[in-house]
C-alpha cells in the first residue's frame, strides 16, 4: 500500500511517499524560513501563498525519486490540523482533489500524531506503550501512548511552547528567526556558571509546563547586562546558555517524572525542539540512570515533514479510516479526540 503524504500546516511544505511493505520511498521538503526571517516570525498569508507554489513541484520530485507513477498510489494523507488555517487548506484541498481524481481514499492526519510517530520511521524504533514529549514552536506536551490513536495527555504548557520561548529569547538576544538553532549555537560558548535561571514549575507536582516566566527572566537579565555596560557577545552567549540549560533541565525533570508516574521505561521525543542536542544528551544521561531509553527521529524528521504524515496516514488508511465527504481542517484539534487505529470510520 503506497501512500502520498502532504504537510502544509505552517512554514514548511513537505511531500513524501510511504509504502507499508517497503517503508519510506522518498520525501521532499521546502522550508520557508528565508521568506519569514525578514518579519521575525511566520506570516500566515505568505506561508499559504508559498505552499500553493511549492507543493506540486515537490510531488513530482518525490515520484521521480521513488521511481513511482501516480497510478501506483493507493491513498492520500494530508495534515488536517492543528496549524494555520489558510496553510492547512492548501494541502487539504490538493489532497482531496488528487484522491478524487485518482479514485483512491483520502484522510486528514493530526500533525502532532505525525510528529509522535516520526521515530517509527527509524530502523530501531520504540514499542508501545511509551511516554512522548512533543516539543516544538507550537506545542509542549507529555502524552502517554498505548498505541496509535490511544493517547492520554499527561501535561502540557500552560502558556508558551518551549520552541516559542526559544524564538522569543533569541529575539531578545538579537538573533534571527527561528531562534532555537541560534540559541543552541551561542550556548556552546556560554559559561554555565554565570547565570542561574529558574526551572519553572519543577517544584510543583504534576506534569504541566510554563515558559513565560523564563522569558521574563531572560528579558530582565538582558536589561541588567545592558544597565551595567553594553550587552557583549559573551553576555549573549552566557544568557543563551543559562536559558537553554533551564529549558532542558525543566523538560528532563518532567520527562523523568512522567515515566515514573506511568511506570514506563520508554520515552519518545519529537517536534522541532527535539533536534536540540543538549536536550538529547541530557535526557539520555538522566534516563540511563533510570534504566529507561529515549528514542527520537532523525534530525530531518524533527521539524515538520511529509514523511511523518505519510506514515501516520498509511497506518490509519490501511485500518480502513477515510475522510467523509466534507473537507475539514482543524486549526485547533486535541489529540485525545483521535480514534484508535482499529476504529474504522471518519477520523
Amino acid at each position: 500500500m503506497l501512500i502520498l503524504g502532504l504537510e502544509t500546516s505552517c512554514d514548511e511544505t513537505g511531500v513524501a511517499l510511504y509504502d507499508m511493505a517497503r517503508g519510506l520511498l522518498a520525501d521532499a521538503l521546502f522550508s520557508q524560513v528565508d521568506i519569514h526571517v525578514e518579519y521575525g516570525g511566520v506570516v500566515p498569508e505568505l506561508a499559504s501563498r508559498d505552499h500553493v507554489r511549492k507543493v506540486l513541484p515537490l510531488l513530482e520530485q518525490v515520484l521521480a525519486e521513488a521511481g513511482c507513477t501516480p497510478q501506483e498510489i493507493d491513498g492520500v494523507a494530508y495534515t488536517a490540523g492543528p496549524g494555520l488555517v489558510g496553510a492547512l487548506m492548501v494541502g487539504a484541498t490538493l489532497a482531496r482533489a488528487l484522491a478524487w481524481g485518482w479514485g483512491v481514499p483520502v484522510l486528514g492526519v493530526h500533525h502532532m500524531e505525525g510528529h509522535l510517530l516520526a521515530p517509527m520511521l527509524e530502523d530501531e524504533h520504540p514499542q508501545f506503550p511509551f511516554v512522548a514529549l512533543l516539543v516544538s514552536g507550537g506545542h509542549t506536551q507529555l502524552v502517554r501512548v498505548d498505541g496509535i490513536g490511544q493517547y492520554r495527555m499527561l501535561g502540557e504548557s500552560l502558556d508558551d511552547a518551549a520552541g516559542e520561548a526559544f524564538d522569543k529569547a533569541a529575539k531578545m538576544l538579537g538573533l534571527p528567526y527561528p531562534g532555537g538553532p541560534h540559541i543552541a549555537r551561542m550556548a556552546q560558548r556560554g559559561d554555565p556558571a554565570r547565570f542561574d535561571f529558574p526551572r519553572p514549575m519543577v517544584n510543583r507536582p504534576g506534569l504541566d509546563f510554563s515558559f513565560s516566566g523564563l522569558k521574563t527572566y531572560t528579558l530582565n537579565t538582558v536589561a541588567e547586562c545592558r544597565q551595567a555596560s553594553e550587552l557583549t557577545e559573551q553576555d549573549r552567549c552566557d544568557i543563551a546558555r543559562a536559558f537553554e540549560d533551564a529549558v532542558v533541565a525543566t523538560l528532563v525533570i518532567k520527562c523523568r517524572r512522567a515515566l515514573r508516574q506511568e511506570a514506563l521505561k520508554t520515552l519518545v521525543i519529537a517536534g522541532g525542539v527535539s533536534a536540540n542536542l543538549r536536550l538529547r544528551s541530557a535526557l539520555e544521561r538522566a534516563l540511563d540512570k533510570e534504566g529507561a531509553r529515549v528514542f527520537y527521529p532523525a534530525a530531518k524528521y524533527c521539524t515538520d515533514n511529509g514523511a511523518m504524515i505519510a506514515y501516520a496516514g498509511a497506518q490509519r488508511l490501511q485500518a480502513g479510516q477515510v475522510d467523509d465527504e466534507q473537507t475539514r481542517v482543524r486549526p485547533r484539534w486535541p489529540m485525545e479526540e483521535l480514534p484508535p487505529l482499529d476504529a474504522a470510520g471518519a477520523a
Partner: protein
Amino acid sequence: MTGILAIETATDACSVAVFVDGQYQQRHEVIPRQHSQRLFGMLQELLPSGDLRAHGIEAIAYGCGPGSFTGLRIAASAVQGLAYASGLPAVAVSSLACQVQTALRRGQVHSRDTVLSTIDARINEVYGAVYCFRQGLAVLQQGPWASAPADIPVMNAQSLRAVGNGCRFLDKFPPAVRAVLQSSVKQLLPEARDLVPLALEKLRCGDIQSPAQVQPVYVRNEISWKKLSQQGKQS
C-alpha cells in the same frame, strides 16, 4: 463541443459547473468561509466520479481571482490536483471577467456596454477592472487593480455600468466615474458556468496551463505585516 469543468470560489459564492454536450449543470451556493468543506460534495453531485475524462471533460477552468485569498487558493489547489490527476489542461479566467459574463447572461448588462466589474476587497478597498464585449465575450479594457473606492483609476469612460459587490462603496467612487455611471448591480457574484465561454475562447487560442502553472492572481500583493526593518529592528 469541448467538455469543461469550471470552479469559481473567489467570492462568498462557491460555484461549480460542468459543461458537456452543450449542456450546463451547476451548483452555486453562497456559503462564506465554507467553500473548502462543500466543494468536493458539490463536485460529486455533478460528476459520479473524479475520472473526468470518462465524463467527457477535456479542460478545467477556474476563476483565478482577484477575490478572497483563501477562496482563490481553494480553487487553485483543487484545479492543480484535478488537472494533475487527470492529465487535462487548466484554463485561468479572471473572476472579474466571469462576473461580467454572469451579468450579461442575466441581462443586467448588454453586449454594447462598457462594464466596471468590482469585487469587495475588504479593508475598505475594491478590486476592479473595466470590460467591453466582443462577440458576447468579456474583453479586458483596464485593470485589474486593487484600490480605495475613491481611487478607482478608470480613464476616459463615456458610459459605464458597474457590477459586483464592490458597488456597495458606490458613493465613494470618484466623481468622474459616478458621472458616467448608467446603472449598478450590487447583488451579483460570479457563477462558475460563466467561466465556460471565456475558457472555450482561451482554449481555442491555446492559452492553457499545466497543473503547476495553476496559481491564484491576487492583484493585491502587499500584505499588512511589517518587516523587521520597517519596525526599526534588525532581521
